[in-house]
């Protein structure tokens, strides 16, 4: 017969001992292993007797307190982090959605035409970009050119589709002398009175308001000269040509100059545009230097001019305030006839004449300063020499 495993017998004996069976009885049941297992079972009995009878409640309470304190500290540490993390994720998602919406709406609106739903978005985005560029005059001018190009493009696309839509655009006016009147290739429908006024504006950079006709032409309701505000450091003085923000500005004898600026000083100029890179200054205001305070009065008077260039042109009646009203306005037909032509500032011939004159080397800066300083106090919209010779 096979002998049982001594380890198994020991384990069985230990179990009995732990369940309270006396050692003698346990040994008696071990049979042939009793002698061998007796010392081990005695040791086991000592082990059993040396057991810690109770769990100390004080120790357990202290352990529990420390345990819970640590748990709370951990969760207090973990919670704000989690909360922050969750808020950060939420915020990031919201911003992403908003940015995507703005981006795609902005992108989608680029090709919108007047009268379409996204067109106001397109114009708003442009205004925002102009506002952001206000600290960079040269960049702002480029942006304005870019947006003017967009307006022209819109009118051309509307004309192609023959969609009658009210439009507003700007560009160089050409035509006259038997040629059709157009701005940047857009054919204009002008009344007789408007045509006569347009003669004085030919070659100038003008703003047009009107209605696109089914034949693609634009029936003009308003035609006015565009005034440009150039503000920046006078980089170079080449006789009567000043370089400001990368653009050459012609100074004529008729240009209203408060105080002669030196190279490096900041000036603010109201000008009309002769060509892409050439401007003709109407007024010049010194923006810094020791005499700044001195010219403050005239500056405020001119600010009106600079702030609202189109209203200048439109306020035909207000010209009575000026000692020397713009000649074109005197040419303006009676309100009953051609009220649409609000602005006819300088004749095209005049522009060219002025521009040519500015390039004459004989003209000196002193001559340029001949404009009367007192006039700067007057709310003059246009300088005296803009009087158009009768044609």
């Amino acid at each position, binding site marked *: 017969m096979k002998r049982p495993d001594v380890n198994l017998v020991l384990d069985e004996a230990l179990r009995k001992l732990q369940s309270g069976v006396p050692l003698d009885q346990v040994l008696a049941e071990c049979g042939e292993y009793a002698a061998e297992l007796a010392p081990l079972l005695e040791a086991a009995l000592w*082990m059993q007797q040396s057991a810690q*009878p109770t769990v100390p409640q004080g*120790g357990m309470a202290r*352990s529990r307190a*420390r345990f819970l304190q640590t748990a709370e500290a951990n969760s207090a540490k973990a919670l704000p982090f989690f909360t922050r993390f969750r808020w950060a994720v939420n915020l990031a998602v919201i911003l992403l959605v908003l940015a995507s919406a703005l981006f795609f709406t902005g992108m989608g609106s680029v090709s919108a035409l007047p009268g379409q739903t996204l067109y106001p978005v397109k114009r708003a985005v442009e205004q925002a970009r102009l506002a952001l560029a206000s600290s960079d005059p040269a960049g702002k001018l480029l942006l304005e050119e870019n947006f003017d190009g967009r307006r022209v493009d819109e009118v051309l696309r509307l004309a192609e589709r023959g969609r009658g839509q009210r439009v507003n655009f700007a560009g160089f006016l050409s035509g006259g002398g038997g040629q059709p009147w157009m701005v940047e290739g857009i054919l204009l429908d002008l009344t007789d009175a408007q045509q006569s006024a347009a003669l004085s504006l030919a070659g100038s950079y003008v703003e047009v308001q009107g209605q696109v006709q089914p034949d693609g032409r634009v029936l003009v309701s308003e035609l006015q000269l565009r005034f440009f505000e150039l503000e920046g450091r006078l980089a170079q003085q080449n006789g009567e040509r000043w370089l400001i923000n990368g653009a050459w500005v012609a100074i004529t004898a008729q240009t209203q100059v408060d105080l002669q600026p030196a190279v490096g000083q900041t000036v603010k100029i109201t000008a009309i545009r002769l060509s892409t890179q050439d401007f003709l200054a109407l007024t010049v205001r010194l923006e810094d230097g020791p005499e700044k305070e001195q010219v403050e009065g005239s500056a405020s008077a001119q600010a009106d001019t600079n702030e609202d260039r189109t209203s200048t042109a439109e306020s035909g009646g207000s010209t009575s305030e000026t000692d020397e009203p713009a000649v074109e306005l005197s040419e303006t037909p009676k309100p009953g006839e051609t009220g649409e032509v609000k602005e006819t500032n300088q004749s095209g011939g005049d522009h060219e004449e002025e521009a040519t004159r500015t390039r004459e080397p004989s003209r000196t800066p002193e001559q340029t300063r001949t404009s009367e300083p007192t006039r700067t106090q007057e709310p003059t919209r246009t300088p005296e020499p803009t009087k158009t010779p009768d044609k």
Partner: protein
Amino acid sequence: MTLENLLARAKKQDMQSLAALHDQLYPLVFRYVSYRLEDEQAREDIVSETFVRMLDVLNKRAHTIQDLRAWLIGTAAHLVSDHYRRQYRRPESGLDLHEDLPDGHTPEHAAEQNQTRREVRQAMRQLTGDQQHVLALRFSQELSLEETARLLGRSVNAVKVLQFRALAALRRAMDERGKSR
């Protein structure tokens, strides 16, 4: 509430459940440590430290209450070993200098019990780590061979042999201490 339910709620940082879980498992760890360590203060510190460490693994490793029991015993065993290692480096704080507080009904009985306990603990320290571990598990928890094998991560046969040798070694150590006195 069952221990499994307590564990599930404790994982959600429910303070009441955490406290209940601590109280339910405290005797398990305490009895184990008390078999291996005579110093009462060190015993309390080690048990407390074991529970603090449990907070870190509650959500990571303790999938069932069995996992948690095994982890607690394993961690307590490591902490006891660390304690002895430090003791070995600083023998001036030897265990013999410490006295347990009397917890018997009479001073005589308590003194006798303390004496036995101290001798057994000191004899146990002459055993190998595995032998101490198996005896502490077997006598503190009254675990079956199978349960002990699972906790130790060994086969039942291996635990049977280990148990036999551990008891034999303890007996020898006790006899040697008896002779030396």
